[in-house]
Every structure is written in C-alpha cells, then in structure tokens.
C-alpha cells in the first residue's frame, strides 16, 4: 500500500454555531476512485474547500498530497488538480490558449508547456480545433479537455466536483472511461456526483449526512449492509432517516 494521498483525522469546520463538517476521518490511497456523496447542504462543498486548501479547518488534522492543511495549504494547491462543472475553462480562449494558461498557472516552463500542449492536442484528437474558441465546441470535448488540463501538472490527486452534470448519457460514460484510465496510472480521484449509477463505479464511497460520515465502504459492501440492490436506495435510506428525526 502506498502512502495515503489524503489523510484526515476528525477534520471539523464550524461557521458560528453551525457545524458544517463534523469530525471527518478519511484515508484515501494512491490510485483510488473515491466517491463523496451527500444531499444538498450535507457539508460536501465545505469539506472539499478544506481539502483543496481554500478554507482553513476549525479543528482536526489533515494532510493532502503530503502537505499539512494548516501549514502547507499553498503546497496542497500546487499538488492537486480540480475540476467542476461550473468552472473549469475559459470559453473565450481557444483550446491552445486554455492549455497554455493553466499550465502557466501551475508553473510549467515554456518548453514543458509546448511539449504538453502537443501531447494533449494529439491524444485528445483536438489538433484540428486547437485555435478554435472553446465556446463553440461540443460539451463532451470541453469536458475531456477540462479533465486533462486539471491533471496537466501531474498532481497526485484530482478533485472532480459534479463533473458530469447536464451531460448526455454517452458523454457521461466516456468521461468515466477517462477517470478509470487515469486511476489505472496511479492518479487518485476524489469525485462528487448526483448520479447514483456513477457512485457504483467508485472503489469506495463516503456518504455525508448533516456534516457527518453516515457510511464509508465499497459500494457492493454498502448495498449488502443495507440489504438493497442499488446505491440509490442506500442513499435515500440514509438521507431520509435523518430528515424524519
């Protein structure tokens, strides 16, 4: 087993009297596809903002990609990738400009940027549209590019925040092909989704309810524990049991 890429111990975030994330303890190892689920308001976004070094925790311990969240949040930011459905690439820049911009931000040298751009355009078959503005490309292409750009600087882990929202069923599955391939090469994937069939594609899942970990296991084991056939049923049981309390 390699060094854990994420390790948290009772990681907590309070906003005034409200505990958004309550004693989150996780250990995620290299190459794992880790699904992070929860209803709206369960604390997912707050947890991700802490794990990506954007928000200081209130208490607890955590290291991400080898850096401490308190003392090394800049190190965390440099060594992770991030992609969300809402923000990923600049629509007004061309494909090539987007690659150059993000590679520059992550501190790649000009030589490396040239090299990477060529490789990427080649492997994604985007050479013909390299100088086309992003706005006019199909969503599926943008999504592939966004993922590739997020891991351009070869981070140990990439955070994918609802990467497949609003996408057609074929494009959604093509995107998961990329996720699988990247994880086979050792990249750790931390992904959130509202599609419960996608939850089944993960190696392990964490379901958050009211800021706490309500379940943490492999999808098949979780379904056995709850005695149901699909992750959708697990999710509804967990989230609903809280609501009626």
């Amino acid at each position: 087993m390699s060094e854990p890429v994420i390790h948290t111990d009772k990681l907590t975030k309070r906003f005034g009297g409200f505990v958004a994330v309550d004693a989150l303890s996780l250990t995620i190892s290299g190459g794992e596809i880790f699904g992070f689920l929860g209803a709206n308001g369960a604390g997912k976004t707050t947890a991700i903002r802490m794990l990506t070094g954007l928000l200081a925790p209130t208490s607890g311990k955590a290291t991400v990609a080898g850096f401490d969240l308190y003392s090394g949040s800049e190190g965390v930011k440099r060594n992770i990738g991030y992609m969300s459905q809402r923000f990923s690439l600049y629509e007004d820049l061309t494909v090539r400009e987007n690659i150059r911009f993000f590679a520059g931000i992550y501190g790649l040298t000009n030589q490396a940027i040239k090299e990477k751009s060529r490789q990427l355009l080649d492997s994604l078959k985007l050479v013909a549209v390299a100088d086309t503005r992003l706005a006019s490309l199909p969503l599926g292409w943008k999504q592939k590019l966004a993922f590739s750009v997020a891991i351009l600087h070869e981070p140990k882990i990439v955070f994918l925040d609802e990467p497949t929202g609003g996408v057609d069923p074929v494009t959604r599955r093509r995107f998961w092909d990329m996720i699988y391939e990247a994880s086979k090469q050792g990249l750790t994937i931390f992904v959130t989704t509202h599609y419960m069939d996608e939850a089944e594609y993960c190696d392990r899942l964490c379901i958050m309810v009211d800021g706490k970990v309500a379940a943490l296991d492999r999808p098949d084991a979780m379904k056995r524990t709850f005695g149901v056939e699909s992750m959708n049923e697990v999710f509804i049981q967990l989230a609903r049991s809280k609501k009626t309390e």
Partner: protein
Amino acid sequence: MKEVVTLANVGKRFGAVQALQGVTISVGKGELFGFIGADGAGKTTLFRILATLLLPDEGRAEVLGLDVVRSYRDIRKRIGYMPGKFSLYPDLSVEENLRFFASVFGTTVEKNYELIRDIYSQLEPFKTRRAGKLSGGMKQKLALSCALVHRPEVLFLDEPTTGVDAVSRKEFWQMLRRLREQGMTILVSTPYMDEAVLCDRIAFMQEGKMLALDTPTGITTLFRKPLFAIRASDTWGLLCVLRASPDAASVYAFGSALHYSDNRPSARADELLAALQADGFTDVSVSVIQPGIEDTFIALMEEKQGSVDE
C-alpha cells in the same frame, strides 16, 4: 382529449446554432409530459417559446389554443413557468416572494392556498427567511409554489431537479404526480433518465431535434438488439474486452453492471458466458435483460450520429 400545447414544425436558430428544428408535439389536458435530453438539446429554447419569451423562427406553437406570437399576453396570465435558473428575489423572504407573485397576477395567496398547500406547508416554518438563503431543495419548492400561486392551467418546468440531490428529486416528483392527479397539465424537462419513467409520455431531445416520442414503455421497444447485463469483479477489464469484440453493438457501464448489446440477433447468454470465462473472467455472470429508457436513448443517439464521435 383537448390539446393544451401544440407545436408544429417549430424551429429556432441563434446565429450558426440551430437550437431547435422540426419539433412537432401535442400535449393533452392533464398530461405529465417530459422532455429528456442533455445540455444543448434545445429544451430551454422550447420552454421559452412556449412561455412566450422567445419567438420561433419557423413553425407554429399554440398554448391553450392561443398562438404564442399573437396572443402572448393572454397566454402569460394562464401559464405557470419555472425557469431552469433560480429566478425569485433572493432579498425577499419566502412569504414576500409568494405574495409578490400572487399580486402580479392579480390574486392572493389565500385564494389559491389549497393548490399550493401540499408544497408550501413544508416551507412555512421558514417563511421569514430570505429566498437567497434557502437550500437547493427548498428554493425549488418555493419556485414551484410561485409558479402555481395564480392557479395556472398548464405548468412549464425547465429542469426543476438539476443539481438537486436524489432525495429532494424524489419528493419533487411526488409533488408533480399529485398536481397531475388534480388535473394539472405539466410539461417538464430533465437530464435525468430515471425521471422519464414517471411521465405519461416523453420526447427524447438531442441537438435541437426530437429523436423519439412515446410512452416510457413504448419508447423502449425502439431498442431492437439483444441486450445483456454482464458483471465481473474486474469491470474495467471486462469493458475493454467486450468493446474489442467484433460482435459488440455497444458496451456501456450501468451502475455495477455492463450493458452489452450484440449485433447478432441470435446471441445467447450461455455462449457469451463461456467466451468470457475462456478469456479469464472466472467470476463473470451474464443475463438477458429488457432495455430501459437510458439504453434506448443511447441507442437512438448512436443511430442518429452513425457512431458517436470519439
């Protein structure tokens, strides 16, 4: 059955983008009609035309027997529209938003309370909270209440459940079913295939065109090839092997299983099983399954585009 919405060959273009093309649909009174498709399928453009916010370039669209271009003022009084983007006033409270929308339509909350009680009662404990501070699921319930408060004859709901968690989605659809039981005509769009089965009829939309229109069960009869659910512990390995097979029509992940369709009408589960076991998948299982809505949507997409571009 009296038609509430009729579209005849409706088209709309934005510059170089053909947002809608040749859409012909009629929706009867009391029907729960779903438009299923991804971003860019043309769903929002269609709803804006029906809500009289956008003019069609081609074709005719009628709502409640009135033309959307000539009679837009009359239509607006009689429809409820919930846009895809949250469009209530974030600085007004829950109650103020509701009263505002009631007054705009010249009515009061009290007059039509019966219709919204089921939905609004869940929000009443928070009625002094600003709308901008509500959770996703509550915003959606408030938006639906505001769209209903003037007792419209037809509801247009543009992706009401996008970005909403599975539990809130389920509750929202239960509300729609109850509204339908009270005789409301509802047109709703969604990118979620699992919501399609909850509609009376559905239209598959892709790149501005209608791929199919039928009941949820009717639509699955368009899937004509033998379909199998195949499982093994090494899902990724299995996917690669099946995709490489010359007989494969399509291979896609569906939750914990792969759905594999075969080009040979005579393909059999036991033969596939033996072949996969010979390939080294010792724990593989194969069973024949009936195609679902999502299988059918994918098959129709692929048919339309030849093979979907890489």
